[in-house]
């Protein structure tokens, strides 16, 4: 009796496991979730087996990870919403630096950080709206418009401030609010988790999010049904600019100063995180959880390679491979979805 039971039980449990796997893969961020979990399991196992050589689980390393994630996270959330709406923003790295310089120099001139920080975010939102207006009014590819923005705002930083670093000396309350710790968890990390939750509800549970997906997924259909797609895109541009400024606040509060060159390349990392997280370059597809997992994945891999003392170029090559693989995977999913 027993062998028969064992025989019949084994295949069933295997099909069950397969269907769970299939279910996870079928979810919006399922594939990236599996990759992420696998990597975590490998890393944790490695850290438990070789606690001295591979300090993945050491408190210092976890703190480094928690501090690193929020900046790219904010940038990627903004860039991601815009990508789902069908547009790009390459200027967010420069806007991130520009608004941080603006905020820091306002504080240097005696303005309270609690006033300067919202002004920085406002500046980011305005720049985003400007990008959007130019893109929409003249019917240009946002890729080109915001490439212009990337160079323009990078130049504006140097014009306004020169190539020197700006000190940031806010009220202590401000510093602890954005880079202190709460129950051992880094404040910036708490902020990014809150943003992820907020963005998730905005994009997946709110009318606005539905219109973002419709605008990016099939603009003609969205307009035919009466959605003002230009307005949706404008708001998405504003969100991308505003989140770039928020990233600037988190980074500046952590470091206590702004380097004029600090944002270079971050826009590409943000877009990379989005692609790895399952967003389509053509818009209309993706999820907030996916974006966040994309950011976590990039930073976990960076961290692991640092812990293994691998030279920096390995990191670039690794991320590059990951992006292309993710893009191929997304493309296959899309094709299956449209067929």
């Amino acid at each position: 009796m027993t062998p028969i039971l064992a025989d019949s039980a084994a295949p069933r449990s295997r099909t069950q496991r397969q269907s769970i796997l299939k279910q996870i893969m079928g979810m919006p961020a399922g594939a990236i979730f599996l990759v992420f979990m696998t990597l975590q399991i490998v890393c944790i196992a490695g850290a438990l087996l070789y606690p001295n050589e591979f300090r993945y689980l050491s408190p210092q390393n976890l703190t480094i990870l928690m501090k690193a994630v929020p900046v790219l996270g904010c940038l990627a959330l903004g860039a991601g919403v815009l990508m789902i709406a069908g547009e790009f923003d390459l200027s967010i790295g420069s806007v991130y630096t520009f608004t941080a310089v603006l905020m820091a120099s306002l504080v240097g001139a005696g303005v309270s950080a609690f006033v300067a920080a919202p002004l920085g975010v406002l500046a980011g939102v305005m720049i985003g709206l400007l990008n959007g207006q130019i893109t929409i009014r003249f019917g240009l590819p946002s890729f080109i418009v915001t490439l212009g923005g990337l160079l323009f705002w990078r130049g504006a930083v140097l014009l306004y401030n020169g190539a020197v670093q700006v000190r940031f000396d806010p009220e202590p309350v401000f510093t602890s609010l954005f880079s202190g710790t709460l129950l051992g968890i880094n404040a910036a990390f708490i902020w990014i988790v809150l943003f992820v939750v907020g963005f998730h509800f905005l994009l997946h549970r709110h009318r606005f999010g539905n219109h973002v997906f419709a605008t990016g997924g099939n603009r003609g259909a969205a307009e035919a049904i009466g959605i003002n797609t230009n307005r949706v895109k404008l708001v998405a541009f504003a969100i991308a600019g505003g989140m770039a400024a928020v990233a600037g606040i988190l980074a500046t509060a952590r470091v206590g100063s702004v380097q004029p060159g600090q944002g270079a390349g971050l826009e590409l990392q943000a877009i990379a995180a989005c692609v790895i997280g399952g967003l389509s370059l053509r818009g209309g597809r993706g999820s907030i959880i996916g974006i966040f997992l994309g950011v976590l994945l990039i930073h976990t891999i960076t961290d692991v390679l640092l812990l293994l003392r691998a030279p920096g170029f390995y990191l670039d090559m690794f991320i590059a491979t990951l992006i292309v693989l993710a893009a191929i995977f997304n493309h296959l999913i899309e094709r299956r979805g449209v067929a």
Partner: protein
Amino acid sequence: MSNLLELHNISKSFGALTALRNLSFHIGEGEVVGLLGDNGAGKSTTVNLISGIHKPTDGYLSVDGKKTLFTCRSDSADAGIETIYQHTALVDSLSITRNIFMGRELTDRFGFLRQAEMREIAMEVLQNAVHISGIDSPDTLVGNLSGGQKQAVAIARAVYFKKRVLLLDEPTSALSVRETEALLNQVLKLKAENVSSVLVTHNIYHAYQVCDRFVIMSHGTKVFDVAKADTTINQLTDYVVLT
């Protein structure tokens, strides 16, 4: 009694090209009108005009006897007109439910979606009002549906939002025989619920199967307007081919 929708001496020019010339016809309550004619006759332009995408160069529309000007798509939607497009206006990357409620989402007062409620209604409409084979869940992505199933979703949208007139521009061009049959039945079912339809098609047999009246266009004007009882397939064919 006034007609649900009337076109009065409508002309439409695109620059030098006159697509519609002095076109008048009406659509009655619960009436299915077949809009026939060769390629370039102006059928799609007429549909776009009724749905508010184009504005007439001359002439006007009236709804329930009242002169109206549609300046955009949502004006006609407010008047109860739903268009089922040649290439259906759906978003492939979203679920059936989200497509049915696209632009008219049920939300709480902060704009958050009432998902469970929308899903339930979508299920109900798909099962009862629109019988489509092979759709098992309203969570299915529209991109995974066949052409006929997509059109059924578009029709489900019209059914739920209690539209008064359905404009169907060559809806069967991408459909299989069975899907075409289902679509035509759908039109008849809606008619039983007093929903009017304008069916644009190349296929006179399809039109003859479901329409109460036929409007035949040629070179931007109406050349024939006849009730089904007063005509035959042969006569309709002659008008479409010879004018």
